[in-house]
């Protein structure tokens, strides 16, 4: 018999207690993996919007952290395009609107120039086409939004104070927000938002994106065009976006709460398990086991239970995220993909919590004199 066989038999002997420990750990790890996974998904999707167009710089109103509240003069686009080294400039207006069919969930609306590269690069599904300058009251729906609204190309829907729009195309994006949103001509959105001649910001691609000094020079040159301009490299922009920062913080806070609950549960289970087995530990000590052997036994048991809890929790989190992402109420807001590193992080946390939770019981068990333990009833 090997030592780990003995450890496994010990775990299997107390099936109910072991199962409860695994469930407790699974809930904690599952919560962490799901919450961090959703937060990361949000971040990833946000970044992907810009990465698709290979955006190097993002221009917004200085001091504004939320894209929705940024206001810039649309005419700045021409001046930015004239800066040496700038390859393309796109302007856009962003808003959220609500639709009766979707309840209180906001739908992302993007206003783009109909002849912009972003419009041309959209992956329009068969049967549809990008918007053109001649289109009146037409829009494009993200694949998921079209599914939620049960709309197809040619159908009409009411948006912006009951204006009737025709679905000209349905697009598939690799970002969950775009899939759950819609694209309308920039001029239409400016009109409905009462922001004629204004945009939320610009995205810029440069000729030499790998030349850091050159990118930095262009950044300063654009900022010099107006004191209310804030020019940020894409990755920095995504990382500092208020929504991302907020969601990250929320994910970590709720994860920390879940972790504390999991750790306390684990500690309680391991302490109770060691208390119950005080006499058995005394016997093991009396028949020749040293303190370290007892500590190893308790820690190994805890590790096995933690990893089992981690596996169940991670699998549950992946499943939960998939189920949630398909719910109409959150359609377009949750990405169903949970990155492997987030799952690995969950396992690592399970292992650490398991070891920490077992440390005190292991220490206590090992400190007992065999006779003290044998007297224990």
């Amino acid at each position, binding site marked *: *018999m*090997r*030592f780990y066989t*003995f450890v496994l*038999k*010990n775990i*299997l*002997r107390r099936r109910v207690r072991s199962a409860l420990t695994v469930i407790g750990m699974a809930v904690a790890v599952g919560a962490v993996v799901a919450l961090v996974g959703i937060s990361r998904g949000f971040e990833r999707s946000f970044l992907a919007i810009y990465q698709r167009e290979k955006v190097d710089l993002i221009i917004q109103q200085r001091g504004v952290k939320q894209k929705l509240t940024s206001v810039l003069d649309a005419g700045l686009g021409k001046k930015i395009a004239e800066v040496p080294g700038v390859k393309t400039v796109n302007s856009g207006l962003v808003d959220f609107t609500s639709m009766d069919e979707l309840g209180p969930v906001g739908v992302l609306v993007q206003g783009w120039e109909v002849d912009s590269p972003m419009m041309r690069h959209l992956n329009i599904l068969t049967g549809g086409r990008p918007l053109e300058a001649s289109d009146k009251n037409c829009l494009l729906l993200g694949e998921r939004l079209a599914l939620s609204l049960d709309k197809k190309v040619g159908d009409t829907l009411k948006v912006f104070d009951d204006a009737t729009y025709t679905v000209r195309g349905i697009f598939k994006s690799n970002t969950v927000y775009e899939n759950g949103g819609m694209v309308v001509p920039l001029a239409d959105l400016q009109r409905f938002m009462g922001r004629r001649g204004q945009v939320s910001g610009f995205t810029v691609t440069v000729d030499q994106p790998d030349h850091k000094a050159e990118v930095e020079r262009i950044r300063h040159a654009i900022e010099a065009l107006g004191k209310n301009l804030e020019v940020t490299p894409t990755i920095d922009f995504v990382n500092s976006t208020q929504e991302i920062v907020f969601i990250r913080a929320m994910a970590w806070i709720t994860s920390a709460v879940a972790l504390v609950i999991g750790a306390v549960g684990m500690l309680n289970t391991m302490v109770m398990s060691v208390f119950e087995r005080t006499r*058995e530990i005394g*016997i*093991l*000590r*009396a*028949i*020749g*086991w*040293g*303190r370290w*052997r007892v500590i190893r036994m308790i820690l190994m048991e805890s590790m096995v239970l933690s990893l089992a809890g981690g596996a169940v929790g991670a699998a549950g989190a992946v499943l939960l995220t998939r189920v949630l992402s398909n719910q109409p109420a959150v359609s377009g807001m949750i990405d169903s993909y949970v990155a492997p590193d987030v799952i690995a992080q969950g396992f690592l946390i399970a292992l650490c919590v398991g070891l920490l939770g077992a440390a005190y019981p292991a220490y206590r068990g090992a400190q007992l*004199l*065999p*006779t003290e333990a*044998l007297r224990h009833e």
Partner: protein
Amino acid sequence: MNKPKHDPFLFRTEQLCKLYPDGQVHAVEDVNITVRRGEYVAIMGPSGSGKSTLLNLLGALDRPTSGEVYIDGMRLSKVRNVDRLRSRMLGFVFQSFHLLPILTAVENVQVPMFEGRLSASARIARAKELLDLVGLGHRIHHMPQKLSVGERQRVAIARALANEPIALLADEPTGNLDSVAAEGIFELFARLHREEGMTIVLITHDEELGRRAQRLVRMQDGHIKSDVFSARRRLRTPLPPFAV
């Protein structure tokens, strides 16, 4: 370890005292006793006389309040790793067997061997050998609950021998057995002593069985009341020059 070169005694105590946990009453008081290698000693006495406490102190399962215990010349209070000493030199047998119910007989016998350096296969081979020795070679895969009480105690004795100890310490090993099973266990102890030269210190309430040991120590109120060599059996090693 502080081991002198020539100590004739396997166990030796000096003014050994142990207070009960309440700190008021002595479980054992000023006990001086010696046990030579290969000796077979029975300890008898009424309940509360201190015999189990003495056995626990001799076996390094407990720490004395004052006084000293020497094992094979090593002063226990100075031994850094008492666990290792206990694992390598002593085997324990309990009245309630204390077998692990989740393990078969052959697995139970292997449990102390985790502290040794045997491979997994060598542990199995040794456990089978020991179960053969105690007459249970045919029941090695039985769970404890499928064995009779006498057989369980035999498994416990095999387990006590797992790390090739030089002494067996047994606390009322026949206390839960019927007379036939108890007789079998005593025969086993006698054989281990006779054929393996095992040093045995056991506690018993059975007067008849106690008298079969080479030496019968009687305790009362934490003191040794008498320490008598039995003429019915010859010692493998000379008796200590004094009986305390």
